[in-house]
């Protein structure tokens, strides 16, 4: 049975077909960002600091994976291939996620002595969720109505992700001794790659031109304005400027961490490509 829901939009689509290339590029960025971070989050299952966090974090990761699935579905509706294939079968060079989001959770391996870094995880998720909230707010006014609708839906769910990571960020940074030291180090580490999350890549100007999303400079300013109060709250200096230390993922530059992630997450898909999910 045909199970697409793209025809359900009641709003007229004021979207110009010439903008499709920019739209597809934007959707890949949105989908791959959420997909990779949800995957890294899911690797914490069973390893989070306490059982309540294990429950909360896996819930957030599952929800984030649901957001990625919606973007992949929009790409499927545009004729870019099936959502499952787009999620599992694309090589690293075709991925558009920010490099920060593909980086491993810390030293060690999920199955063999995971020595994951909780401070890095909290800072990465908190920064990303703020940037994602700003991006979604802009996307609710996108000229491509199906994207605007999906953004509105994700926005209401994201409120809870943000509350969660903000709590961790403030509590750990305000704690004494080791926690504050590790959080300070993690903030530097995340800031060094955070520009990769904020950029819209080579087709960014086209995305703005076709009314798909606001300019990356505007989005960056809003994200900084959203993050700044938390830094005042914990009494830390602002970690500017943001960098792209490990490359620009929007241009297909990635680290070996992504190859490893893709090999693991697509193992079942590659073994039985025709399996029904």
């Amino acid at each position: 049975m045909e199970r697409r829901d793209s025809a359900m939009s009641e709003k007229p689509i004021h979207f110009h077909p010439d903008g499709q290339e920019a739209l597809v590029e934007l959707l890949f960025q949105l989908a791959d960002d959420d997909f990779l971070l949800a995957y890294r989050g899911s690797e914490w299952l069973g390893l989070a600091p306490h059982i309540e966090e294990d429950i909360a974090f896996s819930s957030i990761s599952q929800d984030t994976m649901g957001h990625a699935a919606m973007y992949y579905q929009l790409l499927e509706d545009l004729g870019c291939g099936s959502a499952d294939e787009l999620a599992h079968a694309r090589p690293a060079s075709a991925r558009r996620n920010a490099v920060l989001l593909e980086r491993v959770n810390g030293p060690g391996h999920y199955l063999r002595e995971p020595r994951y870094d909780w401070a890095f995880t909290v800072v990465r998720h908190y920064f990303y969720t703020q940037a994602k909230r700003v991006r979604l707010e802009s996307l609710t006014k996108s000229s491509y109505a199906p994207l605007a609708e999906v953004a509105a839906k994700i926005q209401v769910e994201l409120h809870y992700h943000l509350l969660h990571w903000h709590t961790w960020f403030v509590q750990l940074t305000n704690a004494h001794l080791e926690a504050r030291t590790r959080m300070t180090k993690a903030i530097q580490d995340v800031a060094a790659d955070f520009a990769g999350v904020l950029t819209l890549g080579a087709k960014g100007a086209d995305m703005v031109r076709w009314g798909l999303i606001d300019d990356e400079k505007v989005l960056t300013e809003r994200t900084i304005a959203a993050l700044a109060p938390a830094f005042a709250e914990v009494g830390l200096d602002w970690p500017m400027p943001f960098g792209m230390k490990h490359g620009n993922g929007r241009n297909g530059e990635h680290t070996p961490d992504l190859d490893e992630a893709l090999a693991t997450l697509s193992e079942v898909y590659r073994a039985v490509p025709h399996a029904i999910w």
Partner: protein
Amino acid sequence: MTNEEVWKALETVKDPEIHSISIVDLGMVEQIDVRDGAVSVSLLPTFLGCPALDIIRARVEEAVKQAGASAVTVEFLRHPPWTSDRISEAGRERLKQFGIAPPPRQMPSGAWQVACPYCGAERTVMENLFGPTACRSIFYCQQCKNPFEAMKPVLVSR
């Protein structure tokens, strides 16, 4: 088949994770359409990452077919977003029967207070914003000393 018969069939489809409440009471059914015995049902997903959506789809197809439809189409809509104030009055009572506090109707700035579904006391504390599913949180009642869950308020404008 009449519209009424379809609604009746949909009332038998329960949330796979909260057995006391139907998808109708949850406010997930946005629209039904009956044409020459063929039925199409439009549903609103609660949370996008909810793994129960495919199960709900299959159960709707089965229930409406059993009620006499010649064909059933189930669609999940992206718009409008589902909100927790779509849960019916009866649905709110059924959630309590399952030990889950219904979502607060209005969310004052940030924090929200829920009454214990067992004893009704307002003296409750949130233990975890996220519960066993994305749409639920874990609370503790300081009056009757029971842990319980509450559905998160999900509203569009904040």
